[in-house]
């Protein structure tokens, strides 16, 4: 198996606040490139990696591939779970590093009232200052596509409360590699603060995301660009579009009529009315000699002299009638 080069991914990384607070500002005109609704932090991060590569040729994470994964938010038993579908990773991609990026703000537990001990004249009930912000844990579980269970707990990461709201990153390479080895490419992440009703977060540009830095061992294959970027067939296999070609082939291109539809003055060459040359006779008498085979049978090459003579009479024999379709004829008439 691929041993990733020793690379100490930052156990804790936190980004400058200003630029990340408002991804749109950083994106600028490149936001259009990402399409609507894709202007979240993961898009900003990936654009930044791309710019870094483009300007300095810096290989992202020491490999040739970076895959980002946006989560699907689900609430299970009052808890917010972020599901990441890692199935788009290719078998040829050897994972170097995987990082989990999340935005967190300090959570102050609610200040609570202290019953007054004695009702002194001038004492008044006072509130205890709020305790320390709650410690939170990141819980990772992995499950295979069709399992309905909670999944196998793959790791728990204790989080120190942040001094203020900011993005952080954690290295989850062992968790992702183990889950992939076991074929469980659905990962769930839970930000557990231990509170009873933490309140369910709504989808926001602050949703967490996963980045996987990999080395695609198949990228130097000839034509590797086609494997990931050539997606010609816009229709899913086996479901021809209504406008498909009449003979039900999956090819969506419209076949043009070869025989002229209406009677019109065809441009038969005057004085040449022999039939076109028959399909070459097949000495072995195979049945397909009657049907012109889709492939032209190779004829032995005639010598130089009769090649010249043959060229003349085949021209005379084979091209008496030229067919043009209606559109071409209209254009010709107009000219």
């Amino acid at each position: 198996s691929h041993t990733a080069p020793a690379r100490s991914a930052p156990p804790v990384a936190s980004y400058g606040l200003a630029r990340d607070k408002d991804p749109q500002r950083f994106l600028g005109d490149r936001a259009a490139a990402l399409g609507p609704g894709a202007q979240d932090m993961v898009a900003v991060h990936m654009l930044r990696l791309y710019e870094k590569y483009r300007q300095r040729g810096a290989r992202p994470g020491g490999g040739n591939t970076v895959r980002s994964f946006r989560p699907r938010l689900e609430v299970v038993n009052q808890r917010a779970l972020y599901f990441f579908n890692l199935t788009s990773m290719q078998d040829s991609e050897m994972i170097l590093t995987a990082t989990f990026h999340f935005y967190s703000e300090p959570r102050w537990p609610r200040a609570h009232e202290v019953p007054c001990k004695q009702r002194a004249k001038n004492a008044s009930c006072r509130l205890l200052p709020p305790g320390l912000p709650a410690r939170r844990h990141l819980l990772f579980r992995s499950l295979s596509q069709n399992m309905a269970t909670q999944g196998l707990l793959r790791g728990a990461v204790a989080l120190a409360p942040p001094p203020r709201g900011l993005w952080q990153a954690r290295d989850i390479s062992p968790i992702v590699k183990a889950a992939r080895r076991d074929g469980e490419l659905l990962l769930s992440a839970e930000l557990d603060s231990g509170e009873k009703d933490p309140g369910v977060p709504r989808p926001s540009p602050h949703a967490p995301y996963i980045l996987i830095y990999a080395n695609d061992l198949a990228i130097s294959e000839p034509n590797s660009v086609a494997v990931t970027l050539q997606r010609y067939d816009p229709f899913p296999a086996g479901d021809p579009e209504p406008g498909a070609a009449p003979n039900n082939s999956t090819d969506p291109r419209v076949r043009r009529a070869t025989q002229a539809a209406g009677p019109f003055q065809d441009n038969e060459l005057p004085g040449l009315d022999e039939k076109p040359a028959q399909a070459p006779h097949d000495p072995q008498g195979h049945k397909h000699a009657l049907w012109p085979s889709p492939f032209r049978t190779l004829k032995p090459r005639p010598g130089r002299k009769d090649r010249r003579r043959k060229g003349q009479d085949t021209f005379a024999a084979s091209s008496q009638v030229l067919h043009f379709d209606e559109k071409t004829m209209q254009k010709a008439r107009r000219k």
Partner: protein
Amino acid sequence: QWDEPRVCSRRYLKVDFADIGWNEWIISPKSFDAYYCAGACEFPMPKIVHPSNHATIQSIVRAVGIVPGIPEPCCVPDKMSPLGVLFLDENRNVVLKVYPNMSVETCACR
């Protein structure tokens, strides 16, 4: 294109991903300078076409004409450079891949 040199050399080609229908999922770049190689590898081949030893021998054998039907060597890319492409995968997640051999730097007769 008409005033291009006859000899094997690099020719300019800008590829716009919209022209090949890939622009829907390619975020960046929208186009890049790919170049291509074209031109003759006639005997005698000048140094500028960086002929390989085999191409030199093939070119001489063809010029001497002892063995009929030997074609002249081909003008192909020699040094190439990679291209980083940012695109959306089938799940519309953003992916960055650095593809090798996407742009021609030099051509040669092979």
